[in-house]
């Protein structure tokens, strides 16, 4: 019997411990420290206008910040719903995460543009400050620029009316109506 024969077992034990730890973590959960904190400071370029924008551009009223990219295909599933929300008057800021701006522009042209403006985050530095897990992700920020809520994964009517509607009260009833119409 040789000690090296136990190496696979050892490696697997470490993996199993990691997976066990993974079970107790919710990957969709915002690190508690960031809730209630101000949205990270940034100076970036707006996708469509090419202008420089800073954190101040997103203040004044409760809004959604949607993390998206053309390489993310769940974003594509989510997109029609964002358009609907935008039509209902919910302000949405885009964070175009680790993406190619040309492709991103083509996407907005083809699928429609629900965003007030789009922060171009090519290297993902803002995403890192924000603690982005992957795309899509949607944050609620308050009128004072604080992060109020985070949702990881596709945003749809069910999620919106459950977790988001309290910040957008009159919009919720519209989207709630849409659910009834859909399932009825």
């Amino acid at each position, binding site marked *: *019997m*040789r000690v090296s*024969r*136990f190496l*696979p*077992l050892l490696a*697997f*034990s470490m*993996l*199993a411990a*990691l*997976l*066990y*730890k*993974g*079970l*107790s*973590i*919710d*990957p*969709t959960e915002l*690190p508690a420290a960031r809730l209630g904190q101000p949205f990270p400071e940034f100076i970036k370029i707006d996708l469509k206008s090419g202008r420089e924008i800073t954190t101040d551009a997103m203040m004044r009223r409760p809004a959604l910040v949607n993390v998206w990219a053309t*390489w993310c*295909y*769940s974003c*594509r*599933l989510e997109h*029609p719903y964002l*358009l609907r929300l935008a039509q209902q008057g919910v302000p949405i800021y885009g964070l175009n995460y*680790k993406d190619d701006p040309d492709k991103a522009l*083509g*996407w907005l*042209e*083809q*699928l*429609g543009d629900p965003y007030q403006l789009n922060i171009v985050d090519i290297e993902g530095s803002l995403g*890192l400050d924000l*603690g*982005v*897990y*992957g*795309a899509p992700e949607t944050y609620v920020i308050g009128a004072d620029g604080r992060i109020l809520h985070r949702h*990881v*994964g*596709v945003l749809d*009517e069910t999620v919106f009316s459950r977790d988001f509607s309290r910040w957008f009260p009159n919009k919720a009833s519209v989207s709630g109506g*849409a*659910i009834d*119409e*859909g*399932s009825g």
Partner: protein
Amino acid sequence: MIPELGHVALIIAFMLASGLAVLPMWGSARRDVAMMNLAPTLAVGVMLFVALAFAFLATSFLQDDFTVAVVAANSNSLLPPIFKFSALWGNHEGSLLLWVLILSGWMTAVAFFSRGLPLVMVARVLSVMGMIAVGFLAFSLLTSNPFERLLPTTPLDGNDLNPLLQDPGLIIHPPLLYMGYVGLSVPFAFAIAALIGGRLDASWARWSRPWTNVAWGFLSLGIMLGSWWAYYELGWGGWWFWDPVENASFMPWLMGTALVHSLAVTEKRGVFRSWTVLLAIFAFSLSLLGTFLVRSGVLTSVHAFASDPERGLFILIFLALVVGASLLLYALRAPAVASRVSYGPVSRESLLMINNLVFTVAATVVLLGTLFPLVMDAFSLGKYSVGPPYFNAVFVPLMALVTPFMTVAPLSRWREDSAARWLHELVVPAIGVGVIAAASSFMGQQGFNIWIGLAVLLAGWVSLGVVKDFLRRVKGKGQGPFRWRALSPSFIGMSLAHLGFAAVVLGAVVVTQENQERDLRMAVGDSEELGGYRFELKRLGQLAGPNYVAEQAVFEVSRAGELLAVLVPEKRRYLASGQVMTEAAIDASLWRDLYIALGEPIGEGAWAVRLQYKPLVRWLWLGALMIGLGAIVTVFDRRYRAQAQTRSMIEHGVVGLAS
């Protein structure tokens, strides 16, 4: 009544599986022939009762019995019957039942085709598979009962199947994929049985080889179908996303690729034995890990099933038991003495070792990339996502590295060969391939492209090896069709798979490099040129499907004034869920696909439209099809069914048992 009958059938299957897990194994330890003889009967029994449970659940789906929770959550009365049936495995509970059904199917196949094997081997193999079945049946019964009722609050109609899954590709993709995933339990069970018996030899490798090839072949086909489905159904034209769930099926495939080749060395030469056993354990462990990742919710993915921590914990404990026990057994029982058979540094053994190293490393880097977000999260280092850039950066060079050896390996000699001989045989054709490759790097529509040249070089080089090998084998075997008899199914299968690999390489590189796409606004009467084709939007229309309404756009595609195809992309809205889906329209051919997807209506009768020209994209799936079929063809090789030989092995086995 029907769901309850299904539940009872599942419980009986669980009890039979428990018997299978314990009795034959115990019998093999006590040398009790009667107990060992129970194994095949119990295996068939498990299969029958799982199939019964499956049939009852299918009946509930087809009869729209919305008192059953999974039916209410995943089906709808408007759904076409075929999708009502496939909705069965479009959810966690039902797909788990399919998993167990396929596992019991493999057990039955082993029981049926292994009559020539030593009884003790059959008993142990089936018993190990019985243990796996016990785990998954318990998982189903305790945490994910598919027959749970929604009483008394029964909905009038169901929630509907996710429109993405309402597609013919998704009817057969999961069963094929599971055939592969679960099929890897057979080489695993053979490896464990061999470790228990202490007999890791060429005959063990020969017994498990056909099973491994078939399982790996099905896995290839399953992955291919998934990729193809994503391509046409997601309306985007992408064919691989490095999504955690895709990776979950790809890791066992990569490890399985190493295993398939390593088994060849062990069978032919008796070397790499410990390594082969380890690969067999790893390949199935990765299957189980994939199941864990998909169903536990530790990673986020669109594919992932609705999950809860309780289920995750159950699979994790099961995973720890199965893999932990296997690796402990390996540590204690793997042959400690290095094999006496030797081989030179330049030999077929060494070349296959390179294959093994590269594919094991590839599986490991995919595993690391998939688990990296989890690792960082676990150590509170932040939350990360690993995107396609990482995977492409590590995976593509690895494949480029292994490809050159694929030509030489089938032509090389076991034990001792010389590089000078390879050079002598291959230098002239290699120059030919080089010239063609150099020329083809100028052939794209967008001018010179070095990557196309490299892809043609690699693919041509692999094909060259296959052709060389073919010529060598038919040489001097007479004239006419009789010469073909000299080709064994093993050789045909291997060549087909290697050519398929070359096709995948070529297709992947060409479509990535030469893809042309344009997003634009089009109204009736507008036309656009792309890739030498003219796309004209002729008219818009509406259509009512069985459970959706759709907007249609009719395009005429022409080249040099000649009408080639009429393509009708759709935008569907599904009635039950209100979900909007893009149905792309594709004109497919061997050399290129033309792909049209509708975006959003943007006013004044105009639509946002995406046009794509995708050269050689079919080669990806055609290649993967060749890989899968090639693997499956090999089992028709005569040496796997030589009766006289197995007879002597039975005696050998009995001797082995007594000693």
